[in-house]
């Protein structure tokens, strides 16, 4: 996984709440056996509308997406995170994410930043004209207008993102502990 430290640039000011995974990537795009080629289906129903943020040249190739409450609710499809990544987006900012989506995003080096509603509103304003900077090391989002919003992030996730660590590789180093657990399980709960 590629390390993420700073994400800087324009942001799509999407802002709607309850953007579910069927909106992020409709089911008919899920019939793929690899992780690529999903960007073309991303936000299909939104893009079908005239004047949508994604096709506005102002935000072309923006690395940040700003959304409303409960972003990524719905299904567990990791395709949602893959599609967003493939669009060139490296970070999503919202007042709240669904648990499964933020987990999937993290696994793919897509940063999800939770900020209070008022801060997100402010960033949506700024995003219309100016770039935004996201500093993972210091856990802040800043704007050219001296806005400075601190965000929280799980320390394990932060480390993995900053160092670009492969989670499976990390866990496999603990093989012995897993085997020990399995031995105890076999004697305590042999039916499992």
């Amino acid at each position: 996984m590629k390390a993420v430290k700073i994400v800087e640039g324009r942001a799509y000011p999407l802002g709607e709440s309850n953007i579910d995974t069927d909106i992020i990537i409709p089911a008919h795009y899920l019939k793929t056996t690899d992780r690529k080629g999903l960007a073309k289906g991303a936000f299909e129903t939104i893009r079908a509308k005239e004047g949508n943020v994604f096709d506005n040249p102002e935000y072309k190739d923006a690395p940040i997406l700003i959304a409303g409450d409960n972003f990524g609710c719905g299904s567990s499809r990791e395709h949602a995170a893959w599609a967003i990544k493939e669009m060139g987006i490296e970070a999503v900012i919202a007042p709240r994410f669904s648990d499964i989506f933020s987990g999937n995003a993290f696994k793919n080096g897509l940063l999800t930043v939770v900020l209070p509603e008022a801060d997100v509103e402010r960033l949506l304003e700024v995003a219309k004209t100016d770039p935004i900077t996201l500093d993972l090391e210091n856990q802040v989002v800043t704007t050219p207008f001296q806005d400075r919003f601190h965000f929280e992030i799980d320390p394990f996730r932060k480390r993995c993102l900053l160092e670009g660590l492969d989670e499976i590789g990390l866990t496999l180093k603990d093989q012995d502990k897993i085997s020990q657990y399995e031995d105890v399980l076999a004697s305590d709960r042999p039916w499992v």
Partner: protein
Amino acid sequence: MTKNPRTLYEKIWDAHIVERREDGSALVYIDRHLVHEVTSPQAFEALRQAGRPLRRPDRTLAVPDHNVPTTARVDNEGHLLPIADPQSAKQLAALAKNAPEFGVRYISATDPEQGIVHVVGPEQGFTLPGTTLVCGDSHTAAHGALGALAFGIGTSEVEHVMATQTLILTPAKTMEVRVEGKLSPDVSAKDLILHIIHSLGTAGGTGYAIEYTGEAIRNLSIEERLTVSNMSIEAGARTGLIAPDDKTFAYLFGRPMAPKGQDWEKAVQWWKSLATDEGAVYDKTVIIKAEDVQPSVTWGTSPEDVVPITGVVPDPASFADPAKQAAARRSLEYMGLEPGQKMEGLAVENVFIGSCTNSRIEDLRAAASVVWGRHVADNVKQALVVPGSGLVKRQAEAEGLDEVFKAAGFEWREPGCSMCLAMNPDKVPAGERCASTSNRNFVGRQGPGARTHLVSPAMAAAAAVTGHLTDLRHLEPVEMGEKA
């Protein structure tokens, strides 16, 4: 020293810790892994590329369900019929190849046990109380009905479980949803969970593991509990637990993969110890009054958009939150509805009885009892009954339910996800309405432009025979001997 009182969630969590980490996360052992064709190909491929084996094929079970067509799968001579959509065919072929290659038991689309993963797991006894169970599908929450700590995961996590039989997790907060009192005989488990989602909101359970408790929950059958736990994710919770009890043990006894003999005795003993201790504290408790639950239906494009069937489409202006107002306006435009419009009487062109929420034998019985002696209305173009598994299908056929449905003009299909999501040939055409027993009324979920109204099996059946959303309490009784 006596142990601190713990909740069901905490007991299962504690029993599965391989290692606690300083940052609050833990390496958690996964007892059971269900695999289907849509969220697994990339995980298998990544294992192959890294040269990693699948750690515990014996704890893994693979079943195709999302993409499989629900029409006949073999011709009269028993030859496999080709799948028309090349992409679906490719995904299904990938699972058929990957599962045996990695040593995983594979139930193929033509096996009599094939079905939707969340129907197959419990009925095979693969799902057990007190286990951790995962699947690359958000409705994995369903298995919580048997007291399994079950939740949906993404493909990277699928790969992590395949390679290590563990996940790195942080504990969820706990939420008790206590349903007090008795449900009226007119309402089903589906009405109850729609009511709960409406009360909590689609993000109300985010970050929480729900445990459903209370008299009304204890009174539910296991199949009804599966319907409730299944839709926990629609309230934002990855997990929806129900403490195992005698009903759970009776349901599991003798199932093919359930423990036998001495193991069974030991298992039951341990399962009984899992119930939340007296004095244990949940991070949050929500109380629902069973008497408030009515036959319900969704009007919008979010599962929280629920009203009683006797109700009307709400006015977007009536919501306090401006974001909600905007969302409601968008929903109404998509759904082709006006504020104040009555839900009852709204014509539907499609009816779908199926999905992992409502495709078990009790669901089919409930629907058939409404359909018996009646006929699908002329304005209904598609009326599908899709059993959740091959076993459910054969049971229904043994009871003659298929004949009831077919005589009434329903199509009787092969098991699969079908019209729950538009990945296989079963779709709702754009602009048309569907009374559906599935779990999501999202924009485009049942096909681009499809308008979904979530209902119970009995209400879906009532909509089919009247041609519109109907309060099943208003159906004229069919006289014996008048059977059509």
